[in-house]
């Protein structure tokens, strides 16, 4: 089994807010991230797929194909967007790094598995170089 990872970057804004809570509780739990004017990050997305190299091409997946899938399924919707206001997954889920990793998995799982050959193994999302979340699929 070979694990192949492709990295992509996108820039987006967000804020953390739970509508079920008071403003005071939101500020207490989320701190500066609760500022409703939002703030932004340069995110790095790492997409890992697992499979055996194709005997003809030697590829687990074609990297150009994977790049295009990431572009079509994720970057075209998320890059230079406000995640809370413009991305449907985050209309009701707080766009924490954890939830962004889960949402990326949901957008990529089917396209990767339908292509045959490889399956999605891991999503890692860096919010900053020091902070990241990863999702390895539903348990």
């Amino acid at each position, binding site marked *: 089994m070979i694990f192949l990872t492709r990295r992509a970057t996108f820039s987006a804004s967000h804020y*953390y807010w*739970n509508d*079920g*809570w008071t403003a005071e509780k939101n500020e207490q*739990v*989320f*701190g500066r991230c609760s500022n409703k004017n939002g703030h932004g990050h340069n995110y790095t997305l790492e997409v890992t797929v697992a499979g055996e190299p194709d005997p003809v091409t030697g590829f687990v997946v074609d990297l150009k194909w994977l790049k295009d899938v990431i572009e079509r399924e994720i970057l075209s919707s998320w890059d230079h967007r406000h995640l809370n206001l413009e991305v449907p997954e985050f209309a009701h*889920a*707080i*766009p*924490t*790094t*954890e*939830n962004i*990793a*889960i949402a990326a998995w949901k957008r990529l799982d089917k396209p990767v598995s339908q292509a045959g050959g490889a399956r999605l193994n891991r999503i890692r999302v860096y919010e900053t*170089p*020091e*902070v*990241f*979340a*990863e*999702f*390895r699929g*539903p*348990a």
Partner: protein
Amino acid sequence: MKASFGRRYLFSASHRLHTDALSPEENRSAFGKCNNPHGHGHNYVVEVLVGGDVDPETGMVVNLVVLDDLVRTRVLERFDHAHLNLDPVFMNRVPTTENLCKTVFQLLKGAFGPATLECVRVEETENNFFECYG
């Protein structure tokens, strides 16, 4: 839904790889320049990976502020700008980065409430790193 949350921290410390169980020649042979008598230092990177259910109310596995506080009080304040060999945990253990990695795992294990510590990774330099999964 389970996910993992990771964070990187930095501390600087000195150490010397040496054990009284070996002769001076054997120490030199085993540890090379890391055995030089007065020690040397590194900028260590500690990467902490915590896993668990994403809280439906917060969208978080673990609150970053809580994670930062725990790592700061249990690890960084203890080892930053310190000589590792003088720490009680290394009195009878060589402060290799393997042992440091295991120590950091032990210091943080069980600290994150419902979330669990999955992995501690310690980078001694840009070119070598060690991971402990418990």
